[in-house]
């Protein structure tokens, strides 16, 4: 209970904040920062506003900034043109299952690579890590042929399975496992804890930041994945949101911006919310390559 046992008191965080006290030119600094923030943030604000406008308001020549009376008509129309609810459910389902499986695969594989002795371990590790350097693009034509030949086109497993292999996650988990105190796991082993128990009772609880980082990165990549699901699926009821957006673009074209933009909000808003809520962990995961690579 005592505060003394806390690994890192709050004081430790402070020096990091006290960097580069460049006080001169503050005003110019603030102006530049404000400008940059507005320029970078404006498109998203504009998107949200536009999705709430009527066609008349959208197509006015001196641009109208704010919707006169915000309405969800565009959203309703988008849901009429493509099965938006179904696409949302597909995207959520595939993202949750895909990210969950990716984390599990990476976790299990890294555990084996760090805590188990087995023949050809180095080779297996090399094989897994080298995939980080293989661009998915070169695998697309053969994978498409395979998936088509086993009848997986227009199926969830066709979208999901070929991208499941975890190289990035395995790599991050392995890096983390190597830093875990060996004594704890040895003690657990002496106490008769098998691998399954060691994994769940000791390794996983000691790995929550890495788990969160890998899970969040997987969520973002699964949600946004485009080329593969776009190739594998052409039935609307199996599409993910970004693929459905393509369908809407092709059917409604650019003649009906409000509807297309409303659907764009549906694609982007969920992940934007995830980002805003879990920003620190997500950024840590997405920028993890820089520390390790």
């Amino acid at each position, binding site marked *: 209970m005592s505060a003394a046992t806390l690994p890192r008191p709050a004081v430790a965080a402070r020096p*990091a904040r006290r960097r580069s006290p460049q006080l001169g030119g503050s005003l110019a600094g603030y102006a530049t920062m404000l400008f940059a923030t507005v320029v970078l943030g404006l498109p998203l604000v504009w998107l949200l506003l536009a999705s709430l406008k009527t066609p008349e308001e959208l*197509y006015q020549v001196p641009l109208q900034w704010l919707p006169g009376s915000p309405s969800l008509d565009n959203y309703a129309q988008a849901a009429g043109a493509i099965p938006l609810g179904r696409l949302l459910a597909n995207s959520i389902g595939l993202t949750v299952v895909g990210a969950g499986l990716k984390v599990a695969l990476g976790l299990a594989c890294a555990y084996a690579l760090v805590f188990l002795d087995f023949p050809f371990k180095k080779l297996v590790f090399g094989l897994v890590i080298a995939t980080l350097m293989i661009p998915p693009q070169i695998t697309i034509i*053969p994978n498409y042929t395979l998936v088509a030949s086993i009848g997986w086109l227009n199926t969830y497993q066709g979208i999901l399975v*070929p991208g499941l292999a975890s190289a990035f996650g395995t790599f991050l988990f392995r890096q983390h496992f190597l830093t875990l105190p060996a004594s704890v796991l040895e003690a657990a082993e002496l106490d008769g804890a098998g691998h399954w128990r060691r994994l769940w009772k000791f390794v996983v609880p000691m790995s929550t930041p890495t788990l969160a980082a890998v899970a969040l990165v997987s969520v973002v990549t699964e949600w946004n994945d485009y080329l593969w699901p776009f190739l594998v699926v052409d039935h609307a009821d199996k599409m993910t949101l970004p693929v459905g957006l393509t369908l809407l673009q092709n059917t409604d074209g650019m003649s009906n911006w409000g509807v297309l933009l409303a659907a764009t909000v549906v694609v982007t808003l969920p992940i*934007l919310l995830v980002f805003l809520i879990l920003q620190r962990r997500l950024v840590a995961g997405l920028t993890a390559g820089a520390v390790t690579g």
Partner: protein
Amino acid sequence: MTTVVTPRPSGLPDAPSARAGTPPAGPPPATRTRSRLGARRRRKALLWALLLAGPNVLLIVVFVYRPLLQSLYLSTLQWNLGSPSARFVGLGNYVEWFTAPTTGRVVGTTLVFTVATVGGAMVLGLGLALLLNRRLRGRGVARTVAFAPYVLSGFAVGILWLFMFDPRYGLVQELLGWVGLESPAWYTARPWPLVMVIVVYLWKNLGYVALIYLAGLQAVPQDLRDAAALDGASSARTLRSIVLPLLTPTTFFLLVTMMLSSLQSFDIIKAMTQGGPLGSTTTLMYSIYEESFVGGRAGYASAVATVLFLVLLAVTAVQMRYVQRKVHYA
């Protein structure tokens, strides 16, 4: 249920009981027991390894290495997607690619796109990082706003910006109008479609570069800067002589990462221009998609994919050599 270490279970397995059972004197029986036990343990470990690493390795072999090799093989065939028949043409597809009239244009577009996106993101990202590294109120908000586009779907971002660039009702023409500029025909007149795609790519990836640079900047020791300031160095001079050299590893990492991702970018181009007009935004990556899935020439497209693969491999190889030599520097 967080009973961390329960009292030992009754039948203690493995090591301790084995040690208890061996007489202290004779080495032969001891080693025999140990090796038998070792064999059991090894078999057990192997079983667990198969169980834990097996699924991932299997997926990797089936969906990464198998297609990698198959793609190399396909590149030697004249074969259309879904067609039952194929003809072996050796390096014919490669010869065709190298001599095709459109190849020069595609390579040129890829070069322009890559140099502009990577160079632009590096310069602007460093600038943004320097700004965010100052102790300004609200920089957290600025950082969030800058990074947000990086997590969004590339295709959705493309659609959003297509509307931004709309020649009559778009925000871009409105803002250009404020400063008295006429908006070019973004959708149709070369080179504007390519410029448009580059701008969007920059917007999406800028925050990532800035954040990595920010992490690098925060690792620059403050006393080095203070010393430079004491010596009367201007902030520009400090940046050039102290900060930038110390950031070299970060710069190099970003250069390679951004090059790899830029060379493989697809979603934004698909959403905004579909490689057009008249192929003016068709990059190497986009041409692979077009040849295989629009044109159906899967054999030829595999050859182009191999070319892209070799380019990416070369970039990675340079990185690995550099990192090996420079690792002490970071």
